[in-house]
């Protein structure tokens, strides 16, 4: 009796495990061969297939959708969930919050496996093209195209591939200068007079002389190339040009890197890795006076990095490189995507449209979370002009709105961005260590980028 039941349970265990192993490997096999065929087919007649796959959702649309995003994105969406449930009572939304890095990785794995993914996910603009390359995202052209005129111009290109759109643009990252008004006043600096980067340099010298405070902080041997990327973006340059060729060895790039080098050399900029502990504690204790940062930086300074300095900060447009040049750049930003494998596309579409094409949703998130959106109709709302306490009552939303519409297009983000950023960071580090000049740094970076990405 005993032996028999043991035999049975052992066999059962073995069979279950074998079945589990088989199902894993068959899913694995699919992504190699079958998956490829499937996505090729989808590519060939994308428009017809897509037209069929996007039924118009209404209040009777039902389903359960799973949304993956970092915790702070989830918090933002949750403010609109009650209204969403009212409009779509039959749709149940479940969030799974994990860090954005994990979200990226897990979405990638699910696209690769062809199963196990979310119905909607937040993906950062910087890596979105990699997901497009994996061919597992739904073509959302039909959803995005009618709204393009309502979205910041530069955003469209970040989710576009071969004329099709694979994500719905959401957050934007207009870059500006956040400055400590009290320190500027102490040093006798008029922020209005800082119109060019040369003026900024002069202000840095004056600030150092009169108060001993640095103008900014950025890591040297720990440089992550993010400041450099903002400088490129402001000039409409990038790692690649319009035709996709490597173009980081441009005079504008050399000028930007030389400018950074000069500030470090003269100890006008502190050597602290951006946004890391040393940097945030220096920000909170007033060891440097400006941050060249996107709209989200203002939000995080307020919430986490420099809460003790509330009321002392102000924001202003970036100084220009040349007269008439852009007064802003972009850093960061994100979009919503719907994986092709989702079986709840109608409900997923309802979620995306409710969150991103409805101005009230954006306004609500701005009011509760000061999260900046690329959805332009939001900018006319009175909430945008509300005074912000952290900025001493300055209505920074107005400046964000003004700059967001001026962001130039640049060849920074794309399918090879992670690789190019890594290469550039290492070259900048070796520049700060005095091993090479700015010109050599960008030339070497360009050489490596060509070698690794196979671009010309």
């Amino acid at each position: 009796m005993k032996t028999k039941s043991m035999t049975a349970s052992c066999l059962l265990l073995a069979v279950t495990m074998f079945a589990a192993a088989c199902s894993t490997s068959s899913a694995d096999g699919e992504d190699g061969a079958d998956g490829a065929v499937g996505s090729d087919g989808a590519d060939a007649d994308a428009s017809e297939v897509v037209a069929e796959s996007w039924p118009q959702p209404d209040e009777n649309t039902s389903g359960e959708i799973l949304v993956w995003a970092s915790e702070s994105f989830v918090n933002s969406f949750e403010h609109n969930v009650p209204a969403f449930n009212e409009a779509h009572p039959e749709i149940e939304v479940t969030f799974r919050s994990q860090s954005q890095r994990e979200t990226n990785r897990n979405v990638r794995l699910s696209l690769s496996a062809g199963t196990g993914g979310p119905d909607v996910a937040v993906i950062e603009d910087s890596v979105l093209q990699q997901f497009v390359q994996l061919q597992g995202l739904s073509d959302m052209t039909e959803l995005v195209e009618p709204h393009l005129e309502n979205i910041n111009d530069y955003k469209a290109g970040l989710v576009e591939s071969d004329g099709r759109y694979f994500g719905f643009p959401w957050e934007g990252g207009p870059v500006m200068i956040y400055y400590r008004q009290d320190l500027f006043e102490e040093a006798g600096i008029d922020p209005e007079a800082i119109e060019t980067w040369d003026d900024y340099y002069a202000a840095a010298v004056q600030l150092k002389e009169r108060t001993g405070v640095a103008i900014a902080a950025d890591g040297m041997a720990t440089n992550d190339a993010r400041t450099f990327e903002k400088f490129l973006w402001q000039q409409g340059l990038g790692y690649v040009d319009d035709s996709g060729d490597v173009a980081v060895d441009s005079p504008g790039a050399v000028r930007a890197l030389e400018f950074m080098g000069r500030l470090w050399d003269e100890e006008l900029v502190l050597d602290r890795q951006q946004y890391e502990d040393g940097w945030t504690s220096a920000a909170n204790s007033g060891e440097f006076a400006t941050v060249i940062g996107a709209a989200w930086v203002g939000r995080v300074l307020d919430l986490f990095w420099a809460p003790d300095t509330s009321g002392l900060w102000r924001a202003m447009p970036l100084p220009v490189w040349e007269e008439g040049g852009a007064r802003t750049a972009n850093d960061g930003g994100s979009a919503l995507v719907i994986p092709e494998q989702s079986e709840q596309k109608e409900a997923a579409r309802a979620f995306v449209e409710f969150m991103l094409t409805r101005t009230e949703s954006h306004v609500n998130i701005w009011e509760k979370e000061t999260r900046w959106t690329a959805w332009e109709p939001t900018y006319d709302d009175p909430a945008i002009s509300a005074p912000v306490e952290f900025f001493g009552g300055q209505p920074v939303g107005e400046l964000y709105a003004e700059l967001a519409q001026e962001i130039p297009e640049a060849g920074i983000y794309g399918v090879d961005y992670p690789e190019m950023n890594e290469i550039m960071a290492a070259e900048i580090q070796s520049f700060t260590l005095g091993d090479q000049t700015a010109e050599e740094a960008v030339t070497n970076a360009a050489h490596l980028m060509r070698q690794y990405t196979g671009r010309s």
Partner: protein
Amino acid sequence: MVRTSLPVSTKAKVRPAPHPALPGEGRGSTTGHVPEPSGPSRLRTFGRRYGWAYVFILPFAIFWLGFFLYPILYSIFLAVHDWPGAGPMTYVGVDNYKALLSDRRFWTSARNLSVIYLLYVPAMTFFALVIASVLNAGYLRLQGMWRSFIFVPHAVNMVAAGYTWRLMMQEEGGLYNRLLGVVGGSPIPWLNDPTWAVLSISLLMVWAWLGFHTIIMLAGLQTIPDDVLEAARVDGASATQRFFHVTVPLMRPVIGFSVVYSTIQTFKIFTQPFILTGGGPANATMTPIMQIFSTTFETLRLGYAAAMSWAFFGVMAVVTLLLAKFFVRKEG
């Protein structure tokens, strides 16, 4: 002089133990002697005798096939393709391996690894042996406490330890530099200078693994018979002489294990540089495994990463085999 012509019998001949009875074996055969069957009935007897054993190892075998053997074989296949992780694969033959030859970053990471290896393994092995000898010596009190003390770092999660070390090694405001400041030293760019960063990582490796290897050495030391050391002492050998001419030669297999083990550890180094420096400054602490990781998960060039893994595995296998050969070499 003390001669070391001691009878080292690490390979004592062991008589094969009689085959232990398996459960169920012989059941039903009252005679106790079954004539040797042949053909299909032989297979049946085999099945009856060992069937259970195979059922018991089946779960492991399935996991091993699915999660170890299959990925390993698959990576051989991947290494000759271009593939971003989904979608169509492109066959590229040995191009991935060829590209490795001119991959400056890969060679930089290999060079960094060699430096870390040469800093870490000899230092760690030496200290482990010395500390184990001290712990093994009779005159130290509270031996148990010291042993736990030295082993504790090994039990700490490397990720947690890594972040703590990173905080302590900050150039501005880190604990180490503040302590240096107290004694009047100038701050050290622990993680911000290419040379120091390599040293810092080796230091963290020593900290994390010293306890483990000390325990290994200690176990080895305790197998050395007292009478051998006693005989050496009677012959007039000093403590140093006994250490280098009796202890070390007798410990050779144990030291060999320790060195081979830490070689593999070092080759696989990832967590420490990943957390402490992220491979910087200027790629000075980039290691091959980090390179493979970022090529796979950041730049999504899975075929190339697989080729890198195999090339790297080849080098690691050769080095390990040479070391193993050196340490198990028979005494002349």
